[in-house]
């Protein structure tokens, strides 16, 4: 080996020549080829890969939409209508981008739910989890600013209400809002900067996803049992076992996605956004996009402006400290007979918040939103810390391989070579 060159195992001379100077092939082989992955993944483990694909789809459609979009209050709405009617396949690009945002949130909500259920946020994956929450926040900012771009009624009033959240900050709040707007109301300067940031942030997300995956490849993946792999008999090489499993999920994902795009492209949207923005008339009933509804419900559950805004941001910020709120050393809910039911309830409660967020803020709806908000925080702040002490978990299996292989299925060559007893 010449000094300074990487020792490459690749046979193809071109690949080898590149790989010995820049070992990207070796790296891909290590991280996605032979990468040892727990052998007991279920389909919940598809959603990280799905999120990755979804992010790429958003970037691809977004770049091409930008070639036809005009970021000016006088032209934005019409330029989007032109994309829909005159640009070749413009309707497809836009519907894929629009519904892609919804798909992204569906995928990431399931991905987060997987983390909650199987305790993927616990040691040693705290930073991995925190990076995930950062991605989630960046996604929300990106989706919010993207929704402003077509400059319909919901774009305008959504932007107005959300930017005004910052006016709740004591003392400097109003200055911050004027700074965000670049004027005295949501207007052309606001639209311009939102377009700039909407283009930028997905690439920031790519960067954080890279760190997220880098951290994952240090700790290794969690798995449905929540116990650590103890040796090669507990893992499989990522390729072909999980490349193929992810592909199966990807096909189902594409079927669902295509159904939305081709048969119900506006189902998840709001008809008022096909009315051009009018700064003098607020629509009678403004609602954010569906994926913001739980947080919007929390905002409206509190009768005080600052209190509402603080709880809304708090409901996401609390995820950052979740690894330290959950004091139980057992990761997977399969072995937590009590916590499991509280988490199921939390999931139902989250759906209730979504539902009530779309209702007018009056009467029983407010009462429901208040109870649901209370339980949302109670779960994290009281139930999880207490259960870590009080709950008696079920007995954990000795190894991943044991319950999987006891059925007597064929043992892959790599695993059979090692003594099973050691597990």
């Amino acid at each position, binding site marked *: 080996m010449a000094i300074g060159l990487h020792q490459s195992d690749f046979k193809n001379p071109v690949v080898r020549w590149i790989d010995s100077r820049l070992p990207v092939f070796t790296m891909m082989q290590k991280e996605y080829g032979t990468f040892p992955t727990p052998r007991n993944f279920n389909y919940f483990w598809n959603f990280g890969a799905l999120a990755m694909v979804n992010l790429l789809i958003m970037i691809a459609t977004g770049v091409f939409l930008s070639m036809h979009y005009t970021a000016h209050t006088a032209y934005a709405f019409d330029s989007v209508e032109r994309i829909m009617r005159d640009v070749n396949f413009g309707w497809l690009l836009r519907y894929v981008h629009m519904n892609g945002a919804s798909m992204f949130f569906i995928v990431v909500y399931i991905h987060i739910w997987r983390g909650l259920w199987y305790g993927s946020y616990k040691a040693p994956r705290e930073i991995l989890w925190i990076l995930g929450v950062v991605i989630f926040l960046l996604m929300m900012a990106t989706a919010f600013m993207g929704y402003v771009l077509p400059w319909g009624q919901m774009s305008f009033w959504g932007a107005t209400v959300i930017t*005004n959240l910052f006016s709740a900050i004591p003392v400097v709040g109003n200055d911050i809002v*004027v700074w965000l707007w670049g004027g*005295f109301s949501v*207007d052309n300067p606001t639209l311009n900067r939102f377009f700039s940031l909407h283009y930028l942030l997905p690439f920031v997300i790519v960067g954080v996803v890279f760190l997220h995956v880098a951290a994952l490849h240090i700790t290794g993946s969690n798995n449905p049992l929540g116990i650590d792999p103890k040796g090669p008999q507990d893992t499989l090489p990522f390729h072909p076992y999980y490349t193929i499993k992810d592909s199966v999920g990807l096909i189902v994902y594409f079927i669902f996605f295509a159904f939305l795009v081709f048969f119900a492209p506006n189902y998840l949207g709001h008809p008022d956004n096909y009315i051009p923005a009018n700064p003098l008339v607020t629509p009678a009933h403004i609602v954010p996009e569906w994926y913001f509804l739980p947080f919007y419900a929390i905002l409206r559950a509190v*009768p005080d*402006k600052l209190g509402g805004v603080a709880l809304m941001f708090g409901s996401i910020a609390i995820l950052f400290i979740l690894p330290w709120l959950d004091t139980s050393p057992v990761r997977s809910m399969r072995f937590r007979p009590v916590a499991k039911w509280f988490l199921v309830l939390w999931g139902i409660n989250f759906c209730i918040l979504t539902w009530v967020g779309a209702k007018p*803020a009056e009467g029983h709806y407010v009462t429901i939103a208040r109870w649901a908000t209370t339980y949302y925080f109670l779960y994290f702040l009281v139930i999880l810390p207490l259960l870590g002490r009080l709950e008696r978990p079920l007995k954990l299996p000795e190894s991943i391989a044991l319950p999987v292989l006891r059925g007597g299925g064929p043992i892959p060559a790599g695993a059979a070579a090692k003594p099973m007893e050691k597990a």
Partner: protein
Amino acid sequence: MADAMAPHAAPHGEAGETRRDFLKLTTGAFAAVGVGAIAWPFISSMNPARDVLALASTEVDLSPIAVGQAVTVMWRGKPVFVRRRAEEEIKAAREVPLSQLRDPQTDQSRVIRDPWLVVVGVCTHLGCVPLGQKPTDARGDYGGWFCPCHGSHYDTSGRIRLGPAPANLAVPEYNFTSDTQIRIG
């Protein structure tokens, strides 16, 4: 070599404090100030530009507005409500004791010349435009304006009475340029 690089046992000052620490702190402080100075133009560029600031005044002709009617005009991209209030409305607004108000202000302090009430038509909660300008609109429990977004009620002086909004509808800066004309801003 490694020895030469290592800081010598601190001959001056307190234990552990060396000239190198001083240099590090000074360098760090200069770097922080430098980063701040470079960041400032970027942050400042996002504040309202000069042309945006220049568009800051609007004239309104009051003569066509009948008693009990209201008009909405645009000022700095926001709606401004100009309402010619009826006698009862003014009376109602002045009879309320200040102790009942969330954001206590007398009606007198919110008008320049009767019967005109001029307020920014932006809900102080999260910025929706309240209803109440058209005769057919809902005006809320206090006969002024009602914000449908999260249910704030304003009275005939534009003061917050019920709902999540923390403050009264703002009174913009304006003056009478003649008996039937005002300039806002």
